[in-house]
């Protein structure tokens, strides 16, 4: 603490006491009069200079009454200005933008605005124009196609944004998202993309380490549009509508109805369904099995049975979904932005409204309002306030493919939703249909499930309201010293309501299940009251941030210092509740009473069940204290050294006080080579070299060092609250650390025809939390979390912008190219069995020297020509001992290693053609160098769970087939290890490489520049075609490697039409 004070005193003390007079002024852009912070203003032929502040102001000590100022700013044409003191009027220096190139020259880290020329770290920026080439409804979804070094991993369960690949195994893997100075705690889709001014991605340690323990995965800083001083009132209007094609269900490849029926018939004859037909629980059986059962017990004639079954062979459930469930999605967007600024006040007001209906008729509306102003009552004092409000409402729609069916959400492929007349048909669900039809003799509620109607009765709605308010105060003292206090409060309230109406299957099933039915014709007694069931959830997030910061922006002679030091505290609390009401009547708001402590016999199985209470309360608190400092020193405008340090502490449970603080640092160097006197290149007038090294961190609050208990609920037996372990005592846990070295080259050719940057980085992440195998005799499961792993990554990011043709016709290109490879350097997963490497899906393999998510497979020795059994290898010998292959001791050498499950090369290329008032942009993107597993038939799932794949038709059926297919034959009883072997075999591994046409957008200026009516400054119509599909893919199965989830569909193409106007 004292040392830091000392540092400040020292920095202050360096100020030379030569200033006798001060020359003040302001630097603005000729394009829109906006201030240019970070511009360099210096006296010609003297060693005095200054840097403009956030609002473009500068103060320069001068000794002469007259002189020449040199004003320069990257991306703008430098200017000289001769002054004479005293100034006749306030000095405003207007710089004309240079040609397209490094326009976005101010980098926002969330803590400071930094001129790019003095940055040593790795910052990638997405400017407003590129960002707005797409019309997606949220911010992050627009980034994948345009941001450099950023990719979205879709191999896991949820799409995951990654900056420069992975840096953690079990900690957070996604970047920290900062909106206007503070981490955004709410749902990021609250932010209207129309409000975004710019986006900066902090990629290396020097850039991100200012965010400390949460920055290990990079930081995305979103800056919203703000008002500016000295600006007349302007209004921007943006309106668009998007139509999305119906999803293509033919992409899904379930087993055909006819094949499925053949399998069911064969199984039925073998007695496979006997125990289910016999079972007390009356489990659901498919229509064909029930027909066969009736045929067998004589209640249906063989002819009728066969006729009914044959009719079902023609059905394709995909057609049913297509006809009855899916539709075109429509999205509408309206945005208005007003801003204005006088000398002392700058304000902006943005309003946006989005109204979407998706392909399943689910609705989504978002209203967002942003108001921000900055008041400058005194030249040295700025007060800023902001208030943001978002309201979102979403409602559920129809069920999609894979969302209804049996316990596994699989459906028999001949399911029909309506008959020829459109009358809704029931699905076989939960219980044997024949039983449902007869039990209770009409006394129970209809026990059928009608997918075509049920979504009308079971509806969920979510309302979210987010209010964020912030307050900032900045005071500027002399000598470039200023101080900031910032405070932000956010409150996000989410209310969810799931109403299962009285008519819904859920409610009817619940009421029936608990109904007490006396034998004969006695009156029924309902234990769960008749009526609907209402589940309500509420979550309240309240967070507060307070930050105090001192800034120093000072130039003298050949020296420039930019430094900040500050501290902040953050408190975020989430409280949640969930309640359920039975017998709910939404008209009268009445509900019934139930007894949660008595067990009632299940109407079907007779087993005793409690009525689920489904109520819950949550109360969680995150607290952070952080202290940070960052300083950059530039000598002669060309050599820059930067240093950054930060430490964080949190209220993580069980950490000893000593372990709470996690110090992290980084440092960097840059050298603007092109400013050296010896540098004379007409071809490359701008060349800058920079390099950084440093650490950032990552933490997962879920893992703590001591045993913790989680109080679950009240035991219905003892009426005492009972607890489970939330965490097992694990005294060695600590923070994760990521170290990164980055070297970059920024360049610009003559007239900025070609500008860009090339960066190379290496990173090392250590003390990574990873699951470490323990023998489950310990009683804590088979794995525990420990800081046992480390990984190393390296990669390169290339960004090039070029002006290829610059005449009446303009052609510009933007290229993003990234390589990223990471490997595990230390991780003992103790893999004991081969299947642990091969398990289908996205899994950590943890083999040293291989990527974290590596794709392995079982080597394939073809199908057995006699039986159609798949064959692998055991100890180098061809084998059909699947148990040994799959569960035997793992010998990684005997497995086939393919490569990474995450793309190792990715990028995008955008080309824009402009001619007169027309502009056309097309962007392709690609992902290369990775592998995925194709789905195929799994006989176990086919028999047990109605899960079949169309590959069934290609299965081995007779000797000779092995020459044309690799799909194993059907065997009964099924051998589950055989399924596991085939699913993980090398014949199902495919290369993920593909190139995608992301979008084509066109815009046309409706107003001719010369004769434009005064009321509008400009007006533009635009068209965007999105998700245009895959142009090339390496796999021959026609699979989209970005669609990995079961039953997921590729994003269908969309078309948007919009209008933008400024007045």
């Amino acid at each position: 603490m004292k040392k830091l004070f000392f540092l400040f005193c020292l920095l202050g003390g360096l100020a030379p006491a030569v200033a006798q007079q001060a020359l003040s002024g302001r630097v603005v852009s000729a394009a829109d009069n906006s201030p240019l912070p970070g511009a360099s203003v210096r006296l010609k032929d003297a060693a005095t200079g200054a840097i403009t502040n956030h609002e473009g102001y500068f103060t320069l000590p001068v000794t002469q009454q007259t002189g020449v100022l040199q004003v320069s700013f990257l991306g703008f044409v430098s200017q000289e200005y001769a002054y004479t003191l005293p100034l006749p009027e306030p000095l405003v220096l207007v710089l004309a933008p240079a040609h397209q190139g490094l326009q976005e020259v101010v980098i926002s880290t969330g803590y400071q605005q930094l001129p790019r020329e003095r940055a040593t770290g790795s910052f990638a920026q997405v400017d407003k124009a590129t960002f707005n080439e797409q019309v997606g409804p949220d911010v992050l979804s627009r980034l994948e196609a345009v941001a450099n070094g950023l990719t979205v991993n879709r191999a896991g369960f949820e799409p995951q944004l990654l900056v420069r690949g992975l840096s953690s195994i079990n900690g957070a893997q996604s970047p920290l998202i900062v909106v206007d100075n503070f981490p955004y705690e709410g749902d990021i889709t609250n932010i209207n993309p129309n409000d975004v001014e710019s986006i900066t991605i902090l990629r290396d340690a020097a850039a991100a380490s200012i965010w400390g323990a949460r920055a290990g995965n990079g930081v995305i800083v979103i800056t919203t549009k703000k008002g500016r001083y000295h600006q007349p009132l302007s209004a921007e209007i943006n309106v668009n509508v998007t139509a999305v094609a119906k999803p293509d269900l033919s992409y899904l490849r379930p087993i055909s109805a006819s094949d499925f029926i053949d399998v069911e018939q064969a199984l039925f004859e073998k007695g496979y369904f006997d125990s289910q037909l016999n079972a007390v629980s009356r489990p659901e059986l498919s229509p064909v099995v029930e027909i066969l059962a009736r045929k067998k017990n004589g209640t249906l004639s063989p002819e009728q049975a066969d006729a009914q079954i044959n009719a079902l062979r023609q059905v394709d459930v995909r057609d049913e979904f297509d006809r009855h469930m899916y539709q075109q999605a429509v999205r509408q967007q309206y945005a208005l932005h007003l801003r204005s600024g006088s000398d002392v006040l700058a304000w902006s007001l943005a309003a946006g409204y989005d109204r979407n209906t998706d392909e399943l008729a689910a609705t989504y509306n978002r209203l967002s309002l942003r108001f921000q102003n900055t008041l400058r009552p005194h030249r040295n004092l700025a007060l800023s306030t902001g208030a943001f409000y978002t309201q979102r409402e979403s409602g559920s729609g129809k069920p999609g493919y894979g969302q209804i069916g049996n316990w596994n959400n699989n459906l028999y492929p001949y399911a029909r939703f309506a008959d020829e007349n459109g009358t809704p048909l029931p699905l076989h669900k939960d219980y044997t249909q024949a039983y449902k039809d007869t039990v209770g003799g009409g006394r129970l509620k209809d026990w059928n499930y009608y997918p075509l109607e049920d979504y009308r009765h079971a509806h969920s709605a979510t309302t979210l309201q987010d209010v964020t308010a912030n307050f900032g105060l900045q005071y500027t003292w002399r000598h470039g010293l200023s101080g900031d206090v910032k405070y932000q409060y956010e409150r996000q309230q989410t209310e969810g309501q799931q109403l299962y109406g009285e008519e819904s299957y859920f409610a009817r099933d619940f009421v029936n299940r608990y109904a007490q039915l006396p034998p004969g014709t006695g009156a029924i007694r309902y234990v769960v009251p008749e009526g609907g069931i209402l589940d309500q959830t509420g979550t309240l997030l309240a967070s507060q941030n307070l930050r105090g910061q001192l800034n120093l922006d000072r130039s003298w002679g050949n020296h420039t210092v930019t430094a900040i030091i500050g501290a902040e505290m953050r408190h975020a609390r989430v409280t949640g509740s969930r309640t359920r009401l039975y017998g709910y009547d939404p008209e009268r708001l009445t509900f019934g009473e139930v007894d949660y402590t008595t067990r009632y016999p299940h109407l079907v199985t007779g087993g005793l069940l409690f009525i689920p209470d489904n109520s819950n309360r949550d109360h969680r608190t995150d607290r952070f204290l952080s202290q940070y400092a960052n300083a950059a020193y530039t000598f002669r405008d060309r050599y820059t050294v930067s240093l950054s340090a930060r430490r964080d502490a949190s209220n993580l449970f069980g950490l000893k006080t000593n372990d709470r603080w996690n110090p992290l640092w980084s440092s960097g160097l840059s050298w603007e080579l092109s400013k050296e006197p010896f540098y004379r290149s007409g071809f490359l007038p701008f060349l800058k070299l920079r390099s950084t090294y440093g650490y950032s961190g990552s933490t997962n609050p879920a893992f703590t060092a001591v045993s913790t208990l989680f109080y679950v609920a009240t035991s219905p037996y003892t009426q005492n609250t009972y607890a489970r372990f939330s965490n097992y005592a694990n005294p060695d846990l600590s923070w994760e650390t990521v170290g990164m070295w980055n070297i970059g080259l920024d360049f610009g050719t003559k007239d900025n025809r070609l500008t860009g940057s090339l960066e190379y980085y290496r990173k090392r992440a250590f003390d990574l939390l990873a699951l470490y195998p323990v023998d489950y005799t310990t009683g804590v499961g088979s794995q525990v979390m420990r800081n046992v792993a480390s990984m190393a990554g390296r990669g390169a990011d290339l960004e090039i912008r070029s002006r290829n043709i610059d005449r009446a016709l303009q052609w510009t290109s933007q290229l993003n190219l990234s390589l990223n490879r990471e490997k595990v350097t230390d991780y003992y997963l103790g893999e004991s069995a081969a299947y642990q490497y091969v398990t289908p899906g996205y899994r950590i393999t943890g083999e040293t020297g291989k990527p974290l998510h590596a794709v392995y497979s079982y080597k394939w020795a073809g199908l057995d020509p006699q039986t159609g059994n798949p064959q692998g290898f055991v100890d180098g010998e061809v084998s059909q001992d699947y148990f040994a292959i799959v569960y035997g001791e793992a010998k990684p050498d005997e497995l086939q290693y393919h490569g990474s499950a995450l793309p190792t090369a990715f990028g995008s290329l955008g080309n824009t053609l402009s001619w007169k008032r027309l502009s056309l942009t097309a962007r392709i993107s690609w992902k290369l160098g990775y592998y995925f597993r194709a789905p195929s038939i799994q006989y176990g799932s086919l028999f047990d769970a109605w899960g079949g794949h169309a590959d069934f038709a290609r299965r081995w059926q007779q000797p000779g087939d092995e020459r044309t297919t690799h799909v194993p034959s059907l065997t009964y009883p099924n051998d589950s290890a055989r399924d596991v072997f085939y699913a993980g075999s090398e014949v199902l591994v495919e290369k993920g490489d593909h190139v995608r046409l992301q979008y084509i957008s066109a815009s046309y200026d409706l107003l001719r520049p010369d004769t434009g009516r005064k009321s509008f400054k400009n007006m533009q119509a635009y068209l965007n075609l999105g998700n245009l599909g895959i142009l090339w893919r390496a796999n021959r199965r026609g699979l989209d490697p970005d669609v990995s989830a079961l039953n997921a569909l590729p994003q269908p193409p969309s078309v948007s039409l919009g209008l933008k106007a400024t007045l």
Partner: protein
Amino acid sequence: MKPIILRPSLYGLLLLITFLFGSCDSFLDESPDKKLALPSTLQDMQALLDNHSVMNQNSPAGSSVTSADNIYLPSVTWNAMSNESERRKYTWEKDNLFRMGYRPNHWYNVFQPIYHANTVLESLSGIPRTAANASTWDDVKGQASFYRGEALLAAAYVWALAYDEATASTDLGLPLRLGTSFHEQLVRASVRDTYEQVMRDLREAATLLPAGTQHPVRPSKPAAYAVLARACLSMRKYVEAGAYADSSLALYDGLLDYNQLSATPTYPLPAFNAEVLHHNIFGGVQSLTIGNARVDTLLYASYAADDLRRTLFFRRNADGTNAFRGSYAGSSSYFAGAATNEVYLIQAEARARTGDVTGAMESLNKLLRTRWKTDTFQEYAADNAAGALELILQERRKELLFRGLRWMDIKRLNREGAGIALQRVLNGNTYLLPPGDPRFALAIPEDVIEQSGMQQNPR
């Protein structure tokens, strides 16, 4: 005009930053989640032990039931079973009898409650026993000891051979997990050491537990005596078994008169009924679902027409076979806890084996009277100890189905020379398990052996 404002002091800001720098750790002492607690109070311990889904629903006894001869599976049923380990267990294969990896299996089911018990026992050492908390403190410690002893015993039934004085010191028992550290390398204790640990834990429990509890999901003194009696019986220490049975029944000897039960419900025997001393159940075993497991034909035939169990225990399948529905869990789950009917049978057997024929028949008849239709029961009588024993063992098998006890009975009775050989016929193949076969101790899951380096049961 010069704005009238207070010129902000640099020192004010420095003060704020200093405050933020120096903010004491109390800001960080806030609990991250109100539902989280460090296990530190007796209430926390009780809350852990009240987690019924771990403590009362995890018995490994299903493996014993599948392996023993009270059930059989027709070939079609066996073929249709997707769980291969279950199929293998049924035919007494040498290996791969449990699903491995992330799917919890019976081995894990045993050691999860043991970890809970160990946590409680370790944490208790940090809570002083005072006059004010003595009864709760003792109760909590007794419960934890009970659970550990009970789980070890159930596991010994599955993975160890029967206790035999002659070989107990060398026969492989279980790894004895008595603490919470997961870094400790485990080795398998001998059968003798395993049983000694079981006895130590249960004796401790019997000393500390209260005579009665709020609800049978919590262990009590008579429950501890009952499990002690069970342990001694399987060690063939009949005198001790009898003494513990007496102690248990002296505290509680309630019986359920089956005449009061209706055969209409799917599961006629209620949970927590008058005979239940401690509730412990298991379920989710594919070979044992009511649609799959058939009751041994001869066993079913041995119930007399007036024996109420013939209807209350069984459900007639469409194919004429019988399924078991008489669990004291009152549901499709099976009971593996302690109940007085077992204690009466232990008492009877112990008396018979120690020559008290009258006493033995008295215990047996007291129990059976509640199993027969009112006024139809003819008291059993025996001329000598051997005759009494034969009757008692037969009734033991008929009374204690689907509890995982029969498997150990076969092993221990074979040590007494009963010569019970098991046989299965499936798809035309015959599978045999002769007396004394090492497969009477099931193979420990292979991944456990792999990771721990423990010794596998001889195959």
